[in-house]
């Protein structure tokens, strides 16, 4: 309730600034800053004519495929690096570097390899989150309490059994945190990719707004993107992470 009031207040401030700048002082044109009521009006239209619905489905399809690919490759890569010291020392810094490279930098490659197609956007998404996932899986494995491993060894666990029965489950909460981070990387990559080379999707609808100088459409799509991102974060990852950390006894210092 308090939070709803806060947001109503925020919207009122926004409207106040709009009124002051556009209507009273006339220092801004209406296309510089939209009024919140225009934004919600546009949003309602976009929802009514199903533009947003189609865009959301197209975007979600892409991100699910791209993210799935990045999780598979990222987890495999992370586990391999954690396993071999040589790879960790030499490949590790390179992957850390690649993780800091914004995924949109891969777009030229993507277009050369896959053309202006669905596949190139998926490629950008996948490569945008793969390295983040790989790094956190590696850290998760390295972070496992050595006492668990010692205890398992004294109970006769050896080699790969220690890996599957102790190290992996012990690292799971940290791995989930990594997957969450990977998701936010993927989400950014998706938007960047769609804005540059898509025929449908949220990013494309946003760009249409820009092309038509319809700033309220741009803001409307931004709000949809924020809400979707928050929903997935809160409903899927945060819940999973919280339950797990509680059960693993990690939330009490």
């Amino acid at each position: 309730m308090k939070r709803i009031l806060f947001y109503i207040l925020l919207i009122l401030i926004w409207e106040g600034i709009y009124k002051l700048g556009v209507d009273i002082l006339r220092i801004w044109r209406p296309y510089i800053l939209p009024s919140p009521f225009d934004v919600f009006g546009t949003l309602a239209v976009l929802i009514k004519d199903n533009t947003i619905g189609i865009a959301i489905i197209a975007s979600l399809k892409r991100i699910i495929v791209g993210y799935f690919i990045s999780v598979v490759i990222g987890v495999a890569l992370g586990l391999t690096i954690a396993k071999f010291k040589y790879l960790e020392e030499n490949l590790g810094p390179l992957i850390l570097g690649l993780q800091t490279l914004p995924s949109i930098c891969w777009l030229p490659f993507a277009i050369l390899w896959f053309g202006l197609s669905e596949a190139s956007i998926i490629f950008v998404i996948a490569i945008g989150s793969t390295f983040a996932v790989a790094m956190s899986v590696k850290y998760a494995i390295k972070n496992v309490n050595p006492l668990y491993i010692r205890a398992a060894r004294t109970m006769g666990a050896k080699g790969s059994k220690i890996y599957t029965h102790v190290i992996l489950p012990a690292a799971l909460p940290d791995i989930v945190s990594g997957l969450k981070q990977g998701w936010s990387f993927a989400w950014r990559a998706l938007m960047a990719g769609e804005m540059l080379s898509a025929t449908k999707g949220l990013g494309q609808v946003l760009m249409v707004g820009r092309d038509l100088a319809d700033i309220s459409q741009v803001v409307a799509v931004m709000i949809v993107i924020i809400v979707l991102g928050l929903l997935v974060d809160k409903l899927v990852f945060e819940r999973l992470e919280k339950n797990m950390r509680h059960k693993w006894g990690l939330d009490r210092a």
Partner: protein
Amino acid sequence: MGLVVKDVSKEFVSKHKKTSTLENFNIEIKRGDFVCILGPSGCGKSTLLNILAGLEKATKGVVILNGNEITGPGPDRTVMFQEAALFPWLKVIDNVEFGMKMAGISKEVRYEKAMHYLKMVHLSKFKDSYVFELSGGMKQRVALARALSLDSEILLMDEPFAALDSQTKMMLQQELQRIWVDTKKTIIFITHNAEEAVYLANRVVVMAANPGRIKQEFAIELSRPRQMESSDISYYTAKIMKALKEEVEKVAKAEYDGDWNFEENPVLYSSDTDMGGDL
């Protein structure tokens, strides 16, 4: 038969100096014996236990169990650590079954045995709980059941009750005594608490530090079940404390300022409160 520790030394070499944590450690432990290793911090008692467990390698010397040299960890020597080291992703019962599962024992046998030992530590009601739902004392009980479930000949215990509050500790000590009488396992128990050592053990080995070695050994010839409050326990504890105190003092003197002394002020006295003796 039994466990023979022969001339075991352990050195840690760092850039600046060489520390010998253990030097020519020798002990023979008969099957079914209960031995407490007592010593000040830093005397190498935990290192010794790790070597017996096979988690660390001795720099010199061998450990022989029933004629075979120990080369690595194995289910014939289970370990209980100061922290329970239970796996939080498993239920209590699955934690107890873990070692048996590694050994490839069938599910029915595993379950039956795990329940048997959970009953022994009075936690069968909690078999489907997760670790985060247990208190510290309950965790150590589960860890004890898990260690017992492997039917190992030797149980190695590294200050398992040190982190518990004193009531819980007392209960677990009592229970360990009972379980030892029932199962006749060889138990090697590391502690820095002299009273605990006297209460539990047949033999108390007091260690000296720098380098870690045996200082003195005491045979505790008291009938069981023993009572913590009995004067016999206090008698032995006082005797052992004397030997231990010298070692603790030595270690403390090396760490603190030179003027530190155990016996400096045995009676708290202040000239303000001398009941008028100077009138």
